[in-house]
């Protein structure tokens, strides 16, 4: 098995494990709490509006915004880590069909594995910090994924017989 192929398969399994372990943690310790919080804050906001209590209504709506922001990102991280792991595994299995030199294959595989790890990590860090660093990480990670996938598509198209 070539080094690039091994990197994709081992990286894919590691990323899938990371995504699943994160998913279990999230399901047990965060998901239900966040969903309950989203539902309750919306209900509280409209109930307060019915009682003409605009201060409570506004505060509850603010709480909803924060919870929804975190919930969307937590779910995205789980889905993207596992989805990207699947792509790494499938590409790893078929990597010997690519019409590139071993060096180029290794370069593309490294970029894809790195991007697949960094992109969801950047999204996850956005729940902890609203600064530019997590956003830069997510953008850089997704750019690596897109560029390496484009390179691999060319490599598969080039392969003959």
């Amino acid at each position, binding site marked *: 098995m070539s080094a690039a192929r091994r990197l994709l398969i081992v990286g894919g399994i590691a990323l899938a494990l990371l995504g699943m372990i994160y998913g279990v943690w999230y399901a047990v310790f965060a998901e239900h709490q966040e969903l309950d919080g989203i*539902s309750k804050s*919306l*209900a509280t*906001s*409209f*109930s*307060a*509006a*019915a*009682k*003409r*209590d*605009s201060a409570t*209504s*506004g505060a509850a*709506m603010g709480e*909803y*915004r924060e919870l*929804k*922001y975190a919930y*969307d990102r937590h779910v995205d991280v789980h889905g993207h880590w596992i*989805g990207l792991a*699947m*792509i790494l*595994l*499938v*590409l790893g*299995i*078929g990597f*010997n*069909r690519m019409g590139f030199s071993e060096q180029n294959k290794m370069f593309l595989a490294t970029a894809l594995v790195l991007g697949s790890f960094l992109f969801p990590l950047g999204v996850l860090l956005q729940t902890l910090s609203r600064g530019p660093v997590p956003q830069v990480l*997510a*953008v850089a990670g*997704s*750019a690596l*994924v*897109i560029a390496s*996938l*484009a390179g*691999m*598509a060319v490599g*598969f*198209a080039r*392969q003959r*017989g």
Partner: protein
Amino acid sequence: MAEVQSRSNEAALDVARAAFAAMSARRLLTLGGIGLILVGMLVGDIFAVFVLHQNAAKVGEGLSATAHAAVAGDADAVAGSFQSVGSFLENRGTKVDTHVHMIAFGYLALMLAILQPWVALRGGTRKKLAWVFLVGSWLLPVGVFLIHYVGLAYSPLTTIGWASIFADLGGVVVIVATLGYLLGIGRHLRQAQRAPSQDGLLEDRSVTGRILLAGGLTLVLLGFVHGGYYAAFDLYRHEALDYSLLSEMSIAAGARNVAAVDSALGWYGQLVGEKAVNIAAHAHAIEFGVLAMLLAFFQPYVSLRETWKRAWAWVLLLGSLVLPVFVLLELRLGLVAGGIADVGGLLVILSLLAMWIGIVRYTGEIDAMAPPAGGRRG
């Protein structure tokens, strides 16, 4: 020399036949996996046509009732309306989960089928694990589908019903089977003198396989580019709008301004639709891309003429492109685009069914033409 060659050919043929024999683990997982994806896609299509839009309308009505109850100053009615919205969301969520889990388990089954030569377990054990995997893969989505209808009836627990219990059991069964295969792969890797894996599936270089692999990867790439564009230009705007429209609704309800409430409700409905089509287009392009790439590996076992195999591969890729593109165009073109997107889904289902039938028809004739073990096919 000729006798040695002949024996070697026979040995290779025996191995190939055993690898994809009528009830072998690989065949069970391949046919079961494609079957799961087929049924999952059919469920998705039926759900999209008969449930999704009606359910979205009911959720919208529920939210409208909530806002109008707040306008009327009726806090109890607000709570009641939220409960009905929750019920509609549960109905929608369980159907989406059924669709998604069937397809995801189908992908996993295909992946496990590819990995069979690396699983160092007895044939019988691998076959039993395949059955266990398939039973769990059906139990979970069927259980999830029934959650909305069974509820807490006769349940020994206060928050989880029987349907949820059986769905969770299905998940555990799938995990056990997958762990069993992983154990087998671990054993294979630990074997000091393991034979090099000769596998016709991975050595195939047919044109159809290459079309599916390159086409699938292109679809994945398109899905990512669209996802990146959405994240860069629309995601934060949508998040801000989600908050501001709900906030506007709540403030207008407090001020008894019915016109402002209705206006915010209208905009909110449009926003939800915009988010949904973007996410669906992104997810479907990537999922269909992965499906095409997985199916590329199974082309040697699709017992159809080469021209038909190629045609079905193109049909699959065409449908895989049409569905997400026209889902995205639904906001501009309305139901016409929705209909064309459904036709795209149907094309994927038809090509998948054709490949499934081709694999059922396979009796080993491709392996019969194989050179001796260690040789390569073009």
